[in-house]
């Protein structure tokens, strides 16, 4: 591998930089900006006030207009930088605006009122995080309940998925049995069916089972993922057979072979499936929206979207709540990124 990389980089004389090295680092640096930038921007925007979000050109950091308390005024007044008729600039506080004239006063000398045309003033701003975008919806909604539901769904669904998928994959990779081809064809044939197109029939099944509004209605339908079976089987096919034969010689039961031998060996593939399952379940929106109608059974994705109205979207809340739902995924990634990336490269996805 070291040779291969040497070929690719071809730094012919060690220590000297070939143009491809520079190009590669430039590409990677650009990649960092392009990949992280948009999400960072979303994060920054989520701390802007409703008015701040509407600004053009947008400010990079969350800013809001500076306000000062002026003696004689009951409320704090917004500060503006004003271009005076003689060309000088002054910082004034606005008392009120009437039509296209603003009545302003100098905070230092509050006695005198100055009239300013509104297009001659620019707001004076300061850095300020609009944390109320987060606190207000989180206080209004039963956040901890939603969080618990989401965690419950994600964990239980992932465990069920891992167990039943690995069992099926074990059967499909180790045994020869009648109907194996039919099962394989079914798995592969449905590998790519998006849930959107069978939403209504699955809803009917859930209704008949009496599971509407139970978290199990969210957990169960997606548990038997064809993707998971496929991925695990591909990986298990590569496991050495002699190990299994040896275990059989030692009178291990089939269940023990599955649990004690194959599962530990398939750990990298299981971990990849676990990560994907966590991600799918955590992010699920359309399906829970259809089967969960009671507040106490909402997941985060549903509960935190409740302020999306018919006619208005409250962007400042929407962005903040998006960041809230994003955080756990980001944390999982930060802690497990090396494992995830190497895992995928090493599993049957090749």
């Amino acid at each position, binding site marked *: 591998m070291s040779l291969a990389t040497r070929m690719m980089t071809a730094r012919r004389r060690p220590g000297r930089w070939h143009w491809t090295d520079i190009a590669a680092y430039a590409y990677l640096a650009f990649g960092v900006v392009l990949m992280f930038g948009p999400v960072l921007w979303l994060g920054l925007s989520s701390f802007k006030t409703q008015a701040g979000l*509407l600004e*053009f050109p947008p400010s990079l950091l969350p800013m809001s207009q500076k306000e000062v308390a002026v003696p004689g005024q009951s409320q704090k007044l917004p500060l503006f930088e004003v271009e005076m008729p003689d060309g000088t600039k002054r910082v004034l506080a606005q008392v009120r605006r009437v039509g296209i004239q603003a009545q302003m006063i100098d905070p230092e000398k509050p006695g005198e009122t100055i009239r300013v045309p509104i297009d001659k003033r620019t707001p004076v701003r300061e850095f300020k995080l609009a944390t109320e975008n987060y606190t207000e919806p989180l206080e209004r909604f039963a956040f901890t309940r939603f969080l618990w539901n989401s965690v419950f769904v994600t964990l239980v669904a992932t465990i069920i998925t891992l167990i039943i998928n690995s069992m099926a994959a074990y059967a499909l990779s180790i045994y020869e049995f009648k109907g194996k081809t039919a099962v394989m064809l079914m798995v592969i044939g449905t590998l790519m069916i998006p849930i959107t197109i069978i939403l209504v029939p699955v809803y009917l099944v859930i209704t008949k089972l009496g*599971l509407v509004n139970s978290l199990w209605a969210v957990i169960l339908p997606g548990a038997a993922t064809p993707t998971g079976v496929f991925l695990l089987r591909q990986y298990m096919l590569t496991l050495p057979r002699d190990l299994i034969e040896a275990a059989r010689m030692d009178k291990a039961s089939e269940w023990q072979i599955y649990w004690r031998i194959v599962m530990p060996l398939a750990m990298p593939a299981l971990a990849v499936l676990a990560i994907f399952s966590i991600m799918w379940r955590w992010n699920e929106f359309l399906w829970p929206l259809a089967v969960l109608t009671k507040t106490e059974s909402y997941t985060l994705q549903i509960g935190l979207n*409740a302020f999306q109205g018919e*006619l208005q979207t409250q962007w400042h809340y929407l962005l903040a709540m998006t960041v809230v739902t994003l955080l756990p995924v980001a944390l999982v990634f930060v802690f497990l990124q090396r494992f995830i990336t190497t895992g995928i490269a090493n599993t049957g996805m090749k």
Partner: protein
Amino acid sequence: MQGKHWISALALTAGLTIGGAAFAQTTVRIAWYSDGNEGEVVSDLLKRFEAQNRDIKVVLDQVPYKAITENLPVQLASGQGPDIARVVDLGGIARYALDMRPYLKDAAYWEKNFGPFLPWMRPEGDSSAITGFMTQLTVTGPFVNKTLFEQAGIAMPGAKATWEDWGKAAKDVAAKVQAPFPLAMDRSGHRFFSVAVSEGAKVLDDKGEPAVIDDGFKRAARRVYDWHQSGVMKKELWGSVSGTAYRGANDEFKNAQVVLYHSGSWQIAQFDKTVGDAFDWVAVPSPCGVGNCSGMPGGAGLVAIKTTKSPEAVAKVMDYLASEPVLSEFYARSLFVPGHLGIAAKGLDYKDAGPQAKAALKVFSDQVAELSPVAYKLQGYVNNRVIFNAVISRLGQAISGEGTLDEAYKRIESDIAQQIAERKK
């Protein structure tokens, strides 16, 4: 909670379904979406109700609007709906609605105060049921950025000005002050039909069946289409998304980029809150066409659902919410135009509203009297959303350059016919 899950899991494996756990109280569930603060207001009001009625527990399930339009019909059809729902597709949901008359304290109160709106929430062919009331009566109409007019030094068109006058004035102002949107109109059926009805569109024939494409309709469609061609309207709303999707320009208006924004009364609360002192905004009476000067009525109704297990409790909650003092407080705090004739006649004191919002609310409330009978009939028509959706989708395509207006007319007619035929199968 967790325990209950395990029980349901057991039930599943055993192939059994279990009945709901027994409650000492009757529980009434309301599915509710919010555009502004109305969710908070109603939950305050319901807390008071619960304090007075210890035997009834009211749960307010706050859902995204999407759940109301897309999932609620499926839930209702499968018998899994809530007891009460706040809905916009009144005609579509009406078939699942509960006639509350046997349970109401005073049905005459409902008839008297909600009379004109009750038919909107009745199933086809029914002319007497009482199924709900309007949590908000909306009236379409334009908002004008008065400050932009002043900056441009152009006078605002007067009371009986036509759509043409406003289009021209908005364009002139925008050119002077360099506002990107001279005139913006929500991508919505109600907004379009407020123009169409004032241009003389009849929409329904004498038998009450759709006959959408007539001269009045074409005048309005042509006007909107031409406005897009000449830059009076920008393609961002009508020409951007496909299908039935809604798009509004409220953010742009709040940012002083729109001279005239044709939307409706529900915007007042957020304009009041966000625009603040940045510029002067006013609501103006609905502009006129060749026919009349009507807007479109609409709004969200709170409807009782037939499948409820406790109709008495549902009626009790509805009676409470619809009672004059409670409803007055609800309308006043959420800055909604009242859908209650008694309250409307007395006039409502919007205590929390700023002066601009108060003035705008007055303009819209006055507009209710100006509404044309055609507008009322269309709003009450069971399949009106079929018509709205077809128009949004097809007119939007023509505006974005996919096909001509004539093709759009043909498609509108066939879309409506096909969908209604499917429903009747």
